[in-house]
């Protein structure tokens, strides 16, 4: 390559949504790699095509749809040629040629020519007064012609047809929509949903003519009407054809690149010629073409990754969902919503309220979703569909969404769309719905962007669901709520699972190695990825890897909870909540000697010394001479117990002893999130075992083991995992369950959501049914815990430095 004085030249053909998104992604990764020239045959800088209908309906102005203005191109040193059609790619001389005859040399080309509206192949389709609906020019023309009112006929009742019908209706035209099938939106709706939709649209004064095949546009100098194959006719001043789109492939075809429906691309978005990439509606990948922006944006990410010479990502196709963006009509559909052979349907129809919901199941997975009238649970269901997760245990409320959402800010999860603009969405940062929606309209597409720009859901994250709802209701099909596929954080495009796989496969032994090997965008990472990656490295290689304190939150680095004023709290371990008078005296003396501001019984049956200065921590630990209670860690916290059969008149099992044994077996265990256990001596359940990560309840014949309970922000009752006879079995099964959780859950995912995600069946099959696996899992956990030492003892002995004292005291 040698020549360092010249940057490589990238020519982008098509100044639309996919092309410019690719350039944006590329600039994020490699801002200085290319000298970029963009050609677009439209006169505007990149605008948001999906907002054409609000412009047509007079709800928005063209300027408000601009995604990248001229200044943006200038700031990034991009040469933009608007109104300039590329007519040839000369692959031999490596140059593109424009309609004006200009020749521009390239090292790489990105084709992003999009698609064109298809015309119905009938006589008269070229008469003045026939329009298509694709770009700003169409909208300008339609705005002008609709000013005189009159009759408009739309051919095709797909998404675009209904949008343009809505727009022209809003402009005061008489609109008739003609369709060959029996109901509108037949690709997104079944007959029942179609009937509801038709009713709702007709109520707005739009007429439908169904099962009519158009035969000819009538008129001599301009449109006068439309004739059907059965001979009947209707009058019309304009005809708009929305009968499908055709990928714009002529340029690629002429350059000898392989094309079918679209330009053929590989998983790296390269065409037949590896110097030439293609993204967007013009491409065909694994037999599929896409007409919604969510998948195109995924393609953009991958193409940019390769153009930036990172060369690691693969595009593997997308699962898409659609929403109709006609104000007041809610529709969501995804997958195979028609069902059929081998499938089951769950449906709910409330014709009076205009609500229809249908979930298609194949075995225990969702294969199709259709929601009409109330689409609030769409994104929630879609996640199960896309990830093919087991929904057996959710069957009863699949049609209603996540129920029992309490008052602590979670109530709105399914109702974001109905909230007032002033409603507070993010309690942590005080961000209202109106602020978020405005920010999204100004050009945000992802959760990450909303977090960055408004702070909403950037702190505790409990309102993430609400924010995602707002993204969906504001953006329509554009928003892709791919939680599972989501990048670990803004420093990388890899998901949690991909990072874990790499750590195992490549034996990466430190956070730094992972960042380096996976080309982290910031070599120092951020507050999200550092602790997560450290945890993944430690669980994958408990003996070989070393813990990285600089990748731990302050609490886990200082082995104490930081308080709002920068002091710390000290919670020693009190196994099973059982203590002795001598121990209590010692704790009391330490607290008194150091004037600890508050001593408190915690909700976890132990004592907390609050308000301790960092400098004093090692001294207090030394004087207490007790192990750390890990009250600060994503680790085993407490094992709560009740009195049990030794003293209690109802007790049938010795829950106190079992709690102590469990705590001794599991102490020092790090985990994706905190882990709490409980042991109750009888079904009265005084230790609240059913809201613990692992809880056991004594019964006459032995113990019941419950898992996946949570008593925190969102209460979840635990599921019964097994019934066993002996304490040894309880301990072994708890270990196996927790090890499976440790190896599988995402960092900061507690057992409750994890159990819901993987399904109890899978857990049972590994932890209960397969004895060999159970033993192996438990052994792996024992091995990992054996590598850990009590951090307080380590600090007291000087082997662990928590930097308690200041680096220096400077006196004047």
């Amino acid at each position, binding site marked *: 390559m040698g020549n360092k004085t010249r940057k490589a030249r990238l020519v982008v053909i098509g100044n639309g949504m996919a092309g410019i998104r690719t350039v944006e992604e590329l600039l994020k990764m490699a801002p200085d790699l290319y000298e970029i020239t963009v050609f677009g045959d439209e006169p505007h800088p990149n605008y948001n095509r999906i907002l054409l209908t609000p412009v047509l309906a007079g709800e928005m102005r063209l300027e408000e749809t601009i995604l990248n203005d001229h200044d943006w191109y200038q700031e990034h040193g991009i040469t933009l040629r608007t109104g300039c059609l590329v007519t040839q790619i000369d692959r031999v001389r490596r140059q593109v040629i424009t309609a004006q005859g200009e020749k521009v040399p390239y090292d790489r080309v990105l084709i992003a020519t999009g698609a064109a509206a298809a015309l119905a192949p009938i006589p008269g389709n070229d008469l003045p007064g026939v329009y298509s609906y694709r770009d700003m020019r169409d909208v300008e023309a339609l705005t002008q012609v609709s000013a005189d009112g009159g009759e408009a006929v739309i051919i095709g009742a797909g998404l675009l047809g209904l949008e343009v019908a809505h727009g022209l209706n809003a402009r005061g035209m008489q609109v008739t929509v003609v369709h060959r099938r029996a109901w509108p939106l037949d690709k997104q709706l079944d007959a029942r949903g179609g009937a509801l939709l038709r009713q709702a649209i007709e109520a707005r004064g739009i007429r439908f003519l169904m099962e009519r095949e158009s035969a000819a546009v009538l008129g001599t100098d301009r449109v006068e009407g439309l004739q059907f194959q059965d001979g009947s006719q209707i009058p019309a001043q304009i005809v708009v054809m929305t009968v499908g789109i055709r990928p714009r492939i002529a340029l690629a075809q002429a350059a000898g690149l392989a094309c079918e429906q679209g330009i053929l691309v590989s998983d790296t978005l390269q065409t037949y010629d590896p110097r030439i990439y293609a993204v967007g509606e013009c491409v065909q990948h694994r037999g599929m073409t896409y007409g919604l922006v969510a998948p195109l944006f995924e393609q953009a990410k991958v193409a940019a990754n390769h153009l930036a010479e990172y060369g690691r990502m693969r595009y593997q196709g997308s699962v898409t969902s659609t929403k109709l963006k006609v104000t007041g009509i809610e529709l969501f559909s995804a997958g195979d919503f028609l069902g059929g052979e081998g499938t089951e349907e769950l449906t709910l129809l409330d014709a009076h309220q205009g609500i229809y919901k249908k979930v298609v199941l194949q075995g225990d997975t969702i294969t199709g979703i259709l929601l009409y009238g109330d689409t609030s649970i769409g994104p929630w269901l879609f996640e199960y569909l896309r990830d093919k997760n087991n929904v057996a245990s959710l069957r009863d409320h699949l049609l209603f969404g996540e129920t029992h959402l309490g008052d602590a800010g979670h109530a709105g999860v399914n109702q974001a769309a109905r909230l007032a603009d002033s409603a507070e969405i993010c309690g942590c940062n005080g961000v209202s719905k109106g602020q978020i929606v405005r920010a999204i309209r100004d050009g945000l597409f992802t959760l990450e962007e909303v977090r960055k720009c408004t702070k909403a859901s950037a702190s505790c994250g409990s309102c993430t669901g609400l924010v995602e709802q707002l993204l969906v209701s504001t953006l329509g099909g554009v928003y892709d709520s791919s939680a599972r596929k989501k990048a670990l954080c803004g420093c990388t495009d890899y998901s949690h699972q991909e990072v874990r796989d790499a750590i195992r496969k490549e034996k990466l032994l430190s956070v730094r190695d992972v960042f380096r090997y996976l080309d982290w965008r910031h070599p120092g990472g951020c507050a999200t990825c550092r602790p997560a990656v450290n945890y993944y490295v430690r669980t994958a290689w408990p003996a070989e890897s070393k813990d990285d304190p600089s990748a731990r939150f302050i609490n886990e680095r200082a082995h104490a909870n930081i308080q709002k004023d920068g002091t710390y709290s000290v919670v020693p371990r009190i196994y099973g909540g059982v203590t002795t008078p001598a121990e209590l005296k010692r704790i009391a003396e330490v607290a008194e000697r150091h004037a600890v501001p508050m001593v408190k019984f915690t909700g976890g049956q132990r004592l907390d010394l609050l308000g301790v200065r960092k400098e004093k921590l090692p001294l207090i630990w030394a004087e207490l001479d007790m192990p750390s209670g890990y009250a600060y860690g994503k680790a085993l916290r407490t094992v709560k117990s009740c009195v049990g059969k030794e003293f209690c008149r109802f007790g049938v099992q010795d829950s106190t002893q079992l709690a102590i044994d469990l705590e001794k077996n599991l102490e020092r265990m790090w985990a994706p999130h905190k882990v709490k256990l409980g042991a109750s001596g009888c079904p009265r359940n005084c230790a609240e075992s059913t809201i613990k990560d692992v809880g056991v309840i004594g019964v006459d014949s032995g113990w019941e083991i419950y898992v996946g309970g949570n008593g925190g922000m969102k209460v979840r009752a635990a599921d019964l995992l097994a019934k066993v006879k002996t304490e040894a079995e309880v301990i072994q099964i708890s270990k196996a369950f927790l090890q499976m959780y440790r190896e599988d859950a995402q960092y900061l995912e507690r057992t409750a959501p994890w159990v819901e995600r993987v399904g109890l069946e899978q857990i049972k099959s590994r932890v209960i049914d397969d004895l060999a696996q159970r033993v192996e899992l438990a052994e792996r956990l024992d091995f990992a815990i054996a590598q850990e030492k009590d951090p307080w003892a380590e600090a007291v002995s000087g082997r662990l430095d928590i930097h308690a004292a200041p680096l*220096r005291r*400077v006196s004047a």
Partner: protein
Amino acid sequence: MEWFPLGRIDEVPLGGGRYVETPAGQIAVLCNEAGELFAVHNRCPHRGGPLSEGFVSGKTVFCPLHNWQIDLESGQALPPDQGCVKTFPLKTEGEEIWLGLPEMQS
């Protein structure tokens, strides 16, 4: 400007920080993954969190209390947050870190 020795470079952990007590208040001495050092007041502009206990990455420190991000060169909180923290000059001589404090009038 008066210069004070603080200690050796390797006493400040990479990607993290330490604090020093000075007549000008607590100051955080921070070090990024590449070994670059920064000094700022040890009080987050949000609610006074100790920045010496946060993650440092590039030119940014993440406050340990509520995750505000602060640019270490300008002392400004990164948008959308607003606020700023005072920065102080540092220099190194050999292995020793020196902190520059404005001369005290007495």
